[in-house]
């Protein structure tokens, strides 16, 4: 009988409870930094270095690369604890989640030696150069170019909506390396030092007044040959495989979790019926999403492609974390003069939430991927 979701058991090796306790002990030492809404885009280099020193970054990388040879599901336990606590993990998030695994798998020896150890120490941060002015949801429309010359690669063009470019040391960019190529063919991935001559970063301030994303310009940027990641011309396949890492994690439903925590604390042990019901509904949805996310992580860890499952978790999770502040607002009286945790977090998340179903692939693109999995397109 047809099944809408393949279920994989979440069985990390070792003592999960002890690992979880270790993370919570670490977090208790950094209490003042916690409780941040949408915390995985909030950078705190000091916190990232502390995480690195504690062995919580580069967990799945080999020790030879500065990592810790841990299982992907052990890493999952660590990151879900960090996210649930609202820890400011934004500085290293992309490097630890996807750039490091990609460099390990496809990168040159020079790239591995140069970049992986500092990523594991929480000292080197990366950003993802995908979107361009003419290539948003339609990523295959990428036009920025890379040309191989006798001196090395020369890059020209522009990226936009690049989160964290201004705090990153390196960008992993998708560029058109083959002249005259179209769509997904002829693309390659490159590691670009953000301080290379010819790289210009301009901030784009978001509607909350925050500086997260940027425009990045490449004016004849010269890179050594080893900056190419993986196979020349195979960038599309590598970048889309990377999306499985980008879209499958618990950050796709936990961005508003600190508000849920604050709401429950505000409600007390005997909340009035409507508040109690809202907490019950949110708990059922959170618990179900977590089960779906655990299964997806387990499928990915088993070496299978969870593209459809990851898309389902992301779509459902984004809708959950996006609706949460509005559901709180509808029930709890939070005039603008109120400034306790519930009101403060609610207001911050109301403004941040529209981005949840845009970043990492819009809701419409994600549902299109699910529809393809269903055999509709």
């Amino acid at each position, binding site marked *: *009988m*047809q*099944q*809408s*979701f393949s*279920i994989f058991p*979440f069985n990390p090796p070792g003592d999960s*409870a002890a690992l*979880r306790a270790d993370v919570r002990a670490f977090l208790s030492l950094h209490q003042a930094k916690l409780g941040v809404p949408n915390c995985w885009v909030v950078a705190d280099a000091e916190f990232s270095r502390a995480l690195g020193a504690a062995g919580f970054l580069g967990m799945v990388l080999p020790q030879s690369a500065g990592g810790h040879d841990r299982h992907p599901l052990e890493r999952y336990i660590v990151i*879900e*604890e960090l996210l*649930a606590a609202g820890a400011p993990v934004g500085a290293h998030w992309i490097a630890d989640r996807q750039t490091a695994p990609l460099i390990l798998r496809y990168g040159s020896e020079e790239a591995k030696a140069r970049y992986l150890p500092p990523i594991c120490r929480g000292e080197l941060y990366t950003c993802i150069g995908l979107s361009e002015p003419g290539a948003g949801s339609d990523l295959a429309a990428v036009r920025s170019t890379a040309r191989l010359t006798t001196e090395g690669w020369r890059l020209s063009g522009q990226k936009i909506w690049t989160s964290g470019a201004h705090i990153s040391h390196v960008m992993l960019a998708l560029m058109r390396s083959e002249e005259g190529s179209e769509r997904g063919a002829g693309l390659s991935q490159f590691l670009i030092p953000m301080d290379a001559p010819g790289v210009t970063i301009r901030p784009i301030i978001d509607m909350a007044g925050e500086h997260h994303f940027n425009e990045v310009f490449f004016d004849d940027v010269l890179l050594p040959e080893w900056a190419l990641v993986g196979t020349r011309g195979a960038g599309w396949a590598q970048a889309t495989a990377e999306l499985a890492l980008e879209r499958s994690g618990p950050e796709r439903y936990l961005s508003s*979790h600190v508000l*849920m*925590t*604050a*709401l*429950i*604390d505000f*409600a*007390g*042990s*005997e*909340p009035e*019926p409507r*508040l*109690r*019901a*809202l*907490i*019950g*509904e949110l*708990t*059922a*949805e*959170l*618990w*179900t*999403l*977590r*089960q*779906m996310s655990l*299964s997806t992580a387990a499928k990915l860890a088993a070496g299978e492609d969870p593209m459809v*499952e990851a898309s*389902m978790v992301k*779509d*459902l999770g984004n809708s959950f974390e996006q609706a949460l502040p509005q559901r709180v607002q509808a029930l709890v009286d939070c005039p603008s003069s109120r400034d306790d945790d519930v009101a403060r977090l609610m207001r911050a998340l109301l403004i941040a939430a529209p981005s949840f179903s845009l970043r990492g692939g819009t809701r*419409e693109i*994600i*549902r*299109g991927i*699910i*529809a393809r*999995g*269903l*055999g*509709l*397109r």
Partner: protein
Amino acid sequence: MSEQRTLLCDTAQAVFAEAATAGLAPIEAAGFAQLLIAESNGGFGGDWGDVFAVLRIAGAKVPHLPVGELIIGGEISQPIGAFIRVAQAAGAMDAALAMSIDYTNTRQQFGKPLSKFQAVQQVLAVFATEAAAVNVAGAAAAAALDRANGDVDAALFEIAAAKLRTNQAIGQATAIAHQVHGAIGFTKDYDLHKLTGPLLNWRSDYGNDTHWAAVLGGIAAKLGGAGLWAEITRRG
């Protein structure tokens, strides 16, 4: 899935196909009432994961028959009844989804199959995701019952969450199933109502949304914010 469970599901598929017209008799004759009874007592020695797998198929093939009540036997407690309905709904929803995909891939309008319209693709993606949520929640509730050796109180958190999430999904899933089928799905002759009719009733059975939201909300409030997260992660 274990080999034993695969065999069990194959048997259930065959027996329930017969039961679709013959009623409960073939299901009783095949011994499904002994599913949870220990092998040492002459039963099948199955676990709650097996019950979930069988009831999922029952929800798809014989949603009108009280298969869960037959398997459990005797008086059905509200949480166990809720678990039964979650399992049936998981199967019925996947079956209604399969019908919807098949129909929209076949039915042509404006010179192409309905499934080629993005508006249709997008709502079916939502449907599939809701069905997935119910299937995952039900399987996790079964796993909780197995960890608790069938102690309903020890698995109440998961059962409450699964039934509430299923109730939420039923509204959206049945609405989309009917919407993409158009008028034909609203007729007595077309089989969609054999799935959506029971699904709509199951939302009320053994605790509606308000009931389970109060139960789960009460548990969560007593745990407190950080306590709820600790409890969710402790339970697995």
